[in-house]
Every structure is written in structure tokens, then in C-alpha cells.
């Protein structure tokens, strides 16, 4: 027993270090958001201010356009997540289960789309969207985000489908199911963790996307939250307190979302499908 204690302690310590490292910026965000403006620069570097206030939150919620940004972001991110996950489920299933002629080239093409720095694409995309009336609109953002996220989400979903034994579908078909019934009643329920992960991934990606939101949108009406954060940066100063308060608020939906899906994320639902 005595010998095995050291590795355990080291292991726990390593995890602790990792967690502290990962969470420290979030803690700082929280700390600054509750620090009164007059203490922000006067107290030096402290772990926690001597006095806390929720003034920044109140201001952000009452007197800024933040609620609009928030709503826009929610609409864009949720729509993108749903659209992308639906497409990626179907295409991922096809890549995992069917062999068809152009499969290799389709996969290569999808990989290719992932290689370009997005900045290169801003101008052409603006050119395409503007005659369609999709600039300065949430729909336009959903279209662009979906296009960018479908390839990766497809690969993600494919790997989840690959993890589900083919035997299960075959057993279902022998039991009397059509291919589609087998997909819907057997495969899809088993892919829920994968679907949850994909939803979460795409939602977060869309939630924090700045470049295209900045380029395609002007004005506050259709601005998403990352663009909105920039409004706290004025020519002469940055209002850190309000910016951080807005940031904390923006974390809430993402946090809630993961809370909802974490049950599926950690659940190894396919365990026990095949021999044990």
C-alpha cells in the first residue's frame, strides 16, 4: 500500500495543476467583473478585491445593447448547431456505412476545406452573400457557420458511427427492420452521446466566432456577442469591468448547455453491445 501512494499523489497533483491552469483565466474574469472601477488599478495585483460590486452587471444588462447581442448569439449558435448536427449525422452515417464511388474524393475535398485560413475567405464570402441580401443578417451568419462546421462535424459523427458495431444494424434488419428503421431505432439512440458532443462543439464554435461576425455584420441590431464585446473598447479606454461582466454572462448559456448534455458525453452507451 505504502509504495503505491506516491504515484497517486503525483497523479492528483498533476490533475490539480492542470485544473488550476485551465480555470485561472476564468477566475480572473470573474474577479475583474466584480471589482469596482476605483479599485481596479489602485489595489495592485490581488487575488480578490477588498470590496465587490455587481454594478458592472447591472450596467451591462440595463444600459448596453448586450441583451440584443446575447439573443442574436443564441439564435445563431443554436440554429447552426441544429443544422450542422442534422447534416453531419446523415453524411457521417453515409461515410461510415456505405461505400460509393466518389467517397475518396469527397473526403479529400472536405479535408481540403479545413486547410485554408478563414481570413482568405472573408472577401469572397462577402461578395457572394451581399447580392443575396445575407450580409448584416443572422441567417447569413448561420449559413456561413454551417458551411464551415459541417466537414469537421461530419468526421466527428463518422467516428461515432464507426464505433457502433455493424452487427447491430444487421441484427435489426434480420429482426425485420428496414435500413432506415434500423438507423432510427437502433443506431441513432446509440449515437446520442456523439450527437450531444457535436451539438456542443458546433454551438461553442459559433458562440465564440468573431471574424465573420465582425465582417458580415455592422450595426448593433444583428451583432453577436463577441462583436458586442468590442463595443466596450472605446478609442481612449477599455471598460474592463463591464467587458468582464458581459463575458461572465456569456459563459452562462455555454455552461448550461454542457450541463444538459454532459450526461450523454460521459455515458458509454455502447458498452455491452458486443461480447464482454
Amino acid at each position, binding site marked *: 500500500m505504502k509504495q503505491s501512494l506516491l504515484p497517486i499523489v503525483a497523479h492528483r497533483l498533476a490533475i490539480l495543476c492542470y485544473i488550476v491552469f485551465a480555470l485561472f483565466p476564468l477566475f480572473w474574469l470573474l474577479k475583474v467583473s466584480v471589482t469596482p472601477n476605483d479599485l481596479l488599478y489602485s489595489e495592485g495585483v490581488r487575488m480578490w478585491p477588498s470590496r465587490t460590486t455587481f454594478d458592472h452587471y447591472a450596467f451591462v444588462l440595463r444600459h448596453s445593447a448586450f441583451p440584443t447581442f446575447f439573443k442574436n448569439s443564441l439564435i445563431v449558435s443554436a440554429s447552426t448547431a441544429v443544422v450542422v448536427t442534422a447534416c453531419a449525422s446523415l453524411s457521417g452515417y453515409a461515410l461510415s456505412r456505405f461505400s460509393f464511388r466518389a467517397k475518396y474524393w469527397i473526403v479529400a475535398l472536405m479535408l481540403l476545406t479545413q486547410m485554408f485560413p478563414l481570413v482568405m475567405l472573408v472577401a469572397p464570402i462577402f461578395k457572394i452573400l451581399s447580392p443575396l441580401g445575407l450580409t448584416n443578417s443572422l441567417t447569413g451568419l448561420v449559413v456561413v457557420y454551417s458551411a464551415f462546421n459541417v466537414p469537421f462535424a461530419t468526421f466527428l459523427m463518422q467516428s461515432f458511427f464507426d464505433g457502433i*458495431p455493424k*452487427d*447491430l444494424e*444487421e*441484427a*435489426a*434488419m*434480420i*429482426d*425485420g*427492420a*428496414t435500413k432506415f*428503421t434500423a438507423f432510427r431505432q*437502433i443506431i441513432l*439512440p*446509440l449515437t446520442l452521446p456523439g450527437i450531444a458532443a457535436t451539438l456542443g462543439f458546433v454551438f461553442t464554435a459559433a458562440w465564440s466566432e468573431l471574424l465573420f461576425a465582425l465582417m458580415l455584420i455592422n450595426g448593433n441590431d444583428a451583432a453577436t456577442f463577441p462583436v458586442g464585446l468590442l463595443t466596450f473598447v472605446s478609442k481612449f479606454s477599455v471598460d474592463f469591468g463591464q467587458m468582464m461582466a458581459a463575458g461572465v454572462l456569456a459563459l452562462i448559456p455555454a455552461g448550461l448547455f454542457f450541463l444538459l448534455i454532459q450526461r450523454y458525453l460521459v455515458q458509454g*452507451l*455502447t*458498452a*455491452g*453491445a*458486443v*461480447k*464482454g
Partner: protein
Amino acid sequence: MASIEIEKLEKSYGHVSVLHGIDLDIRDGEFIVLVGPSGCGKSTLLRMIAGLEDVSKGEIRIAGNRVNDLHPKDRDIAMVFQSYALYPHMSVAGNMSYSLRLRKTAKEKIGAAVAGAASKLGLEPLLERRPKALSGGQRQRVAMGRAIVRQPKAFLFDEPLSNLDARLREQMRAEIKKMHADLKATSIYVTHDQIEAMTLADRIVAMHGGVVQQVGSPLELYDRPANLFVAGFIGSPGMNFLDAAYLGGAAILKDGSRIAVNSPAAVQEGSGLTLGIRPEHIVITTDGSGMRAGVELVEPTGFGIILHLSMHGLPVKVFTLDRQALALGGEVTVSFPAEHVHLFDDEGKRIG
């Protein structure tokens, strides 16, 4: 229940040919075992019958109807997979009733069918559990239960016992045999284990390299193997093979020993052949007659004893129930009774 006919069936994946013209007539209610080494195409054949693989050439008929282009769901067969393929998100009862629910069977009927199958397999206390919470043997039973809840035209088994430990395998083997005696359903059972094949089959289909080598009852295959492959595959420990030449009504071994044999059908004087004899048929003589052989190794199995002998450098295995053999060492004399000697020509075909 139904008969199954397979005619000139071929399967290829691209340019790779896997099955080369299989012909097989399976009678209504018969228990057929497909046996052969791994990779010989047993699963492929079974999956073609199930409709999970396309037919490249030839025809499959179930109950007289051509099913080549029929979807698996319309073939009305049940299959037990090696991996069991239980639906992880359904309870044991849900797994067993799935096929009936898909057919929109009445609730009471489903309940009765599941209860019936569960009691046959001793699954009653487990009905509400998920597959995850079952042992390997229990999962195997659920897979069997899923197959027997409805009355399909035929049962297909693809190595259903190979993931179980030896003791359980023996037990399930007997249960499958009992179940077949009970249901009398046409069954096709794939295995690479010749003991399973021998114990279960009405008829064995021995396969090798995508070709059927021999079809017959277990004892036919044991007593009169059609070729070297079947002779070597059936039986454990495996048959001894010795190169010989046919001269004057006897087989002359490399070392010059003469072995009297029943004269084979058509063989020329002086032509080469392979002599086969099962370890359990070799007699250890005590009167000094027969051929001399050195004892290399003695393996007691509890039930009997396997002796590894060397006859002038040729390895020969002997299986005996005589415990005195344990004390043997040095040299023994053995004889090959003519009625147990198999002869194969230089192409491996049985000639006597």
C-alpha cells in the same frame, strides 16, 4: 420451417473470389453445420443466406422461393451473431420482443412469446436488465432468446459459442441440441470447432478455401473422409499422415516398413500415396510384432494418453486409454490395423 437450396453460389469482392460455386440442399428441419478453418468463407455463405451480402452468381431458395434479391427483413430467418449484437439501449425483454414489435404483433402475444422463450432459457429474472449488466453467458442466452421468440423459417448461427469459456460452451452446446430436438427448426450453424460440428450436426458441410470438401453425417466424415483436408480437420488429436508407395498389396513407408492395407480401388503398382491413420486406431503391440518406434513425449489427458512417437524419424501420434502407456519409454512396437487405414492419392483424394 423450410428447406433451403443453394445452387452454384459464388461470391467475389471485386476481383477476389471468396466462394467458388457452392451447391447444398438443406432439408426441412435439418441441423447443418458449416465447418472449416478461419477465412474459408463460412460466414460469407451464412450472411448470403441471411441477405446481408449480395449474391455474385448462383441462386438461393428458401422454401422453394428464390430469395437472391429479397431484403433480410423479408426472408423470415433468425440469426445469432458471434458478437451477440444485443441492442444496448433496450432491456432483455425489449431485445427479445423487438422483431415482434416491428411486425406489430398484439401486446398479449408478445408477452406470451417473450415469457415462453425466457422460461426455456432461464432468463426470467433478467428480463428488465440491460445487456451491459449481463455476463457473457447470459448475453449469449438473450441472443438465442431473441432468435426463438418468433417462429422463423430457419435459424442461422455464426460461431455463437466462441466467446464463451470452455465449460459454458459445452453446456450451451447441449442446450442448442436440446432446443433443436424441441423446435425441429431448420438450422445452419457455422463453427471452426470440429467438436461442435460433430456433436451438433445432422449433416456436416466441411469447407476449405471457398469450396465444399465433403457433405455427410458426422460419422461419415470421421469414418470415410473424402480427402486429406477433411481427414486432417475432423478428429482430435489429428490424423497421422505418412508418405508411402503402393507395392504388392501393401503400403511401403519411407523407412521401408510394410503396412498391409485393403487394396484400394484404382491405384498403379509403385505409385505414391498418402497413408492416414487416426491416433486412436493405432495399436501398441505387446508381443513384439509390428513396427518399432521411439517414444518422444507422453501427454496424459486424464481420460487417455497421447504418445508422440518417432518411427525412424517420422512423427506419429498415438492415443490410448491404457494407463500402462504412462510408464512407457524407450521403444514400443505399434501396428496399423488395415480396416482403419485411409489411403489418399497424390491429389489428396480418398482412394481407400
